[in-house]
């Protein structure tokens, strides 16, 4: 099998929660050796986000969300706040290509791990930071998580039902989109290093990255000064364009009609061919004007069908239609199954499940889940003995001094 694209790179991952770890998951999927550095008193809060009762043995290794976001990675412990921990971390930096962190400012500086210090350990090291607001500016110390990012970034204000107020997205949207940007930042910085021999510092301000995902609204406002309003499921030029009820509990189908031809096909499939010539709907402008009425007609038809029936009938006629898939339906979806999207992963403490595979499908080096998420401190031996060459005695001293450990302190995330 071909080597994975990032097989030769080592990344020290100080990020926690979802944004940074989603980014390093993408890089780990691509073959990078991602080593999560945790500590007994500083461990990933996702390990604690679990419904498993706290008195269950090794509960921190059993969090579904942690195990999901951290597959293909390694984990070790090092207390960076202790001089010996910091020193060993810098020795690891000398053996690595990238450090990525999501600490609040100015934690890295307080730990004595500013970019200049990292460079003294390895001259061409790349440092990527993923602050919410950025590392400069009057609000650099403000705190924000995923849903805050979409609010700050302008997405929430333009999301919502027609005529209604702003609406939160269904996921912690700012997190994964920041993670993708961070993964791209790592790849570009590695490109730059290949070409110039130089490392660099990259700041991924999550707020700014988010604004980029609604950029046309900024340019549009700049042109005409009109504040965009939530449009529900409608589009600026297509109609019908919406989400329609189907038979069954909470079953929906989405339909988007682009032109006259597609509209005629929709009418034919609905058994209402005369509507295509009806003056209320005959052209794009009339359909757009009369879409409330049109939505009612489409809904009458969808209500008597399942999302699957409506989708298949419309797709046969060349109309964009799709069911609204919840997670259980995604797991059963025949397309994702046929493409081998779901992969099985086994974890020593947490069991065996099917989870989503790798979204970047490369023809020559197809990537898969190679490793389950690391147990807390699982790779202390690999990192301390294997990479740093410490003796058994030294490792025991580190454990005695609390620089490393194999059980996280539960009171950190209560």
């Amino acid at each position, binding site marked *: 099998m071909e080597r994975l694209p990032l097989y030769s790179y080592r990344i020290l991952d100080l990020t926690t929660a979802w944004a940074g770890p989603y980014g390093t998951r993408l890089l780990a999927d691509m073959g990078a050796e991602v080593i999560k550095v945790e500590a007994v008193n500083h461990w990933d809060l996702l390990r604690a986000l679990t419904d498993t009762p706290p008195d269950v043995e090794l509960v921190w290794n059993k969090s579904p969300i942690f195990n999901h976001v951290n597959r293909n990675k390694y984990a070790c412990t090092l207390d960076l706040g202790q001089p010996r921990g910091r020193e060993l971390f810098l020795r690891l930096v000398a053996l690595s290509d990238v450090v990525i962190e999501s600490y609040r400012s100015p934690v890295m500086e307080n730990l004595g791990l500013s970019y200049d210090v990292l460079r003294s350990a390895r001259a061409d090291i790349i440092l990527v930071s993923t602050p919410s607001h950025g590392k400069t500016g009057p609000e650099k110390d403000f705190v924000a998580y995923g*849903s805050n990012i979409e609010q700050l970034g302008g997405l929430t204000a333009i999301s919502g039902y027609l005529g209604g107020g702003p609406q939160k*997205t269904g996921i912690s949207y700012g997190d*994964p989109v920041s993670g993708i940007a961070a993964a791209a930042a790592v790849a570009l*910085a590695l490109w730059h290093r290949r070409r110039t021999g130089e490392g660099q510092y990259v700041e991924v301000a999550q707020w700014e990255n988010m*604004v980029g995902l609604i950029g046309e609204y900024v340019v549009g406002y700049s042109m005409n000064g009109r504040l965009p309003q939530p449009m529900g499921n409608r589009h*600026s030029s297509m109609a019908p364009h919406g*989400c329609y009820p189907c038979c069954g509990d909470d079953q929906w189908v989405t339909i988007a009609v682009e032109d006259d031809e597609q509209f005629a096909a929709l009418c034919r499939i609905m058994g209402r061919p005369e509507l295509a010539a009806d003056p209320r709907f005959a052209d794009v402008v009339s359909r757009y004007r009369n879409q409330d009425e049109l939505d009612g007609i489409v809904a009458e038809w969808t209500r008597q069908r399942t999302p699957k029936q409506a989708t298949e009938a419309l797709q046969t006629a060349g109309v964009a239609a*799709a069911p609204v898939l919840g997670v259980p339906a995604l797991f059963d979806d025949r397309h994702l199954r046929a493409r081998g999207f779901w992969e099985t992963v086994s974890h020593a403490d947490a069991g065996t499940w099917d989870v989503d595979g790798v979204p970047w499908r490369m023809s020559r080096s197809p990537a898969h889940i190679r490793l389950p998420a690391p147990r807390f401190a699982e790779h202390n031996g690999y990192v301390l003995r294997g990479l740093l060459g410490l003796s058994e005695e030294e490792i025991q001293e580190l454990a005695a001094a609390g620089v490393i450990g194999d059980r996280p302190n539960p009171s950190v995330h209560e």
Partner: protein
Amino acid sequence: MTSLSALRVLDLSDGVAGAFCTKLLAGFGAEVIKIERPGAGDPLRRHGPFPDDLPHREKGALFLYLNTAKKSITLDIAQRTGALIFRRLVEGVEVVVESFSPGYLAELGLGYESLARIKPRLVMTSITPFGQDGPYAGYKAANLTAFAMGGQMAVTGEPDREPLKNGGYQAEYQAGLHAFAATAVAALSADSTEVGQHIDIAAMECLATMLEPYVSSWAYLKRDIGQRRGNVVSGTVGLYPCRDGHLGIHCMPRNWPALARALGREDLLADERFRDHYHRLQHNDELESIVYAWATTQERKAAYQRAGGLRAPVSFVHTVQDLLEAPQLRARGFFQQIGHPAAGRQTYPGPPFRPEAMPWQAARAPLLGEHNEEIYCEELGLSRQELALLRASGVV
């Protein structure tokens, strides 16, 4: 010029996702040559808003935003002559980005296998709603339907109403951002191995990998927690109306003391009902009513500044105007003014991230076919007369 200038990209795509992917490559310095259809050009040129609401193919906000720092040539690759010219262009690039229906380029003799014979280190990124194979590969799609299929729509909106898409083209932006990162990774690898590959990006799959915690809960516990929950997820995570807008709170367990201070309720820290995360969830209704009542007395900007100073995770819903006025973004010089011969000077968002050594290229979008002479004559060595011949035959 940045080190990425050595990366040359041909962009055949005609949707938001592909355009966003190559906008980001161009922004960090890659030379992106956008190939548009002779005549109308990129369909994105038809989308508004436009200055004074007058449609014009050089003035649409969506096109202008998504095509900054690119070059534009026109070429009809469906004609044999056009396909041959395209093959010559491929010799000089590292990356091709495309978004056609699966199989279309292969029909024209321009599929990945065929192009890789011309240029072994070529990375070709195909961005489609459902991917290059599988039962839905030929399905028609739009941003709305891709959003529905990727699982994010089912969890967005109010529980008693229809599922809701996010504002704008979020399914396409997510796929475009994924494609950008994947292309950068594959180009990096090809730079050392001298062998490229074909990347298949399916929006549906990209979206489905971003469904925490719904996927993990179902995968590991067979528990479906993907019910729509509207704007209030819990007493300390959600959107709360305030006097002049909406405040957003996203409190993790460690932020509780800071949030209680921001609410002006330090007394809650000593309240047994709220002593840890578990107990706060047990008393969620009481907490929610406290937060809700507090928010209604607040003005958004003042509350945000005060909470920020206390390091409580409180934000407010920013309109586009709020964004342009935001002190933090202004201090950081995030927004940029970019002039354009047809559309004039407008305000654009800056870079998604800031690599110290790879400054963002804030250059305007190209006019349709603006770089025909540069690419066809200077680079491929055609004479002006030959270019005129191609124009006359509708190839260019």
